[in-house]
């Protein structure tokens, strides 16, 4: 299928966005991302190790920014100010790159998003010229407010970051999708390929995941499974499912021409 995901005016063939954390090493990171077919990869911004760093490999060598669209995130930020500061550094680091993932967390135990700080940060970042893909709760009102602020994609959680609990509230996601004029991507909580397919069948424009791939027994194989699940789920959504009925009395084989 040749239909594309448009984010901030740029087309992408893959609707699977992946994180680059929690892998055994950079070789495994690269192999999994290749298997996933993802074009957009998230990265974190952290203090550089000063001292024993000469010759140490860097993520950028394994995932050249020329080959992938980087999506710097604000993981670990608990305030709007920290998130804004982090993304301004990311923009400088990546030569003026504007596409970012905003997430402001509420507490370190659950990693639940703090939507109040998220909204405050989104306002500043959009005004500052960033293309903001925003991680948020599955609250349809908040999702709409983030759209109205000018975010380029809204990314509600399926369940909590790293939990692998799957989609806990498909009804809320459906409301968000129905009301949204910008791409809706499920971000966080996907645990297996079936979860990803369900998200796409609900009508999500894409899915962002990290742990579901990186923490699988075989991350490269899971990355491949996720790629297929996203594609299958998307096609299933576009094809339009048959209506559910308790029973049909309409067998698939002809009722006429029976012997005897």
């Amino acid at each position, binding site marked *: 299928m040749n239909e594309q995901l448009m984010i901030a005016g740029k087309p992408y063939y893959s609707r699977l966005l992946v*994180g*680059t*954390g*929690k*892998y055994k090493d*950079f070789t495994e*990171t690269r192999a999994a991302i290749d298997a996933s077919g993802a074009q957009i990869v*998230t*990265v*974190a*911004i*952290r*203090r*550089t190790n*000063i*001292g024993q*760093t*000469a010759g140490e490999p*860097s*993520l*950028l060598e394994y995932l050249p920014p020329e080959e992938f669209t*980087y999506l*710097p*995130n604000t*993981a670990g930020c608990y305030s709007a100010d920290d998130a804004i*500061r982090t993304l*301004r*550094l*990311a923009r*400088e*680091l*990546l030569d003026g790159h504007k596409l970012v993932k905003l997430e402001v967390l509420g507490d370190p135990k659950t990693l639940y998003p703090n939507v109040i700080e998220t909204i405050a940060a989104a306002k500043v970042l959009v005004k500052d010229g960033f293309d903001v893909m925003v991680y948020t709760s599955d609250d349809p009102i908040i999702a709409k407010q983030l759209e109205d602020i000018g975010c380029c994609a809204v990314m509600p959680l399926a369940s909590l*970051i790293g939990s692998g609990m799957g989609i806990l509230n498909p009804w809320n996601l459906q409301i968000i999708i129905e009301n949204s004029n910008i791409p809706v991507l499920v971000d966080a909580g996907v645990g297996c390929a079936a979860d990803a397919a369900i998200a796409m069948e609900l009508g999500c424009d894409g899915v*962002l*995941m*990290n*742990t579901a791939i990186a923490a699988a027994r075989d991350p490269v194989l899971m990355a491949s499974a996720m790629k297929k699940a996203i594609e299958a789920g998307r096609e299933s959504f576009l094809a339009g499912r048959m209506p559910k009925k308790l029973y049909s009395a309409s067998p698939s084989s002809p009722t006429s021409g029976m012997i005897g």
Partner: protein
Amino acid sequence: MEIYINGNIRKFDSGNMTISALIVTLNLTGKRLAIEKNGEIVPRSQFSEEKLQDGDKLEIVGAVGGG
């Protein structure tokens, strides 16, 4: 002079150093990084002119794996 780098204090013999010189001293030549000095981003194009002073606070960051 003493400079705070990523939260740690470091002493340098030179009292007159640019950010470019600091990058060489710290063995970070060729690394892709962004630098904030006293809360303000220093564009890469200004590394060779930006002078450091005693007590400056630097954040030196790079991209790492994350979700």
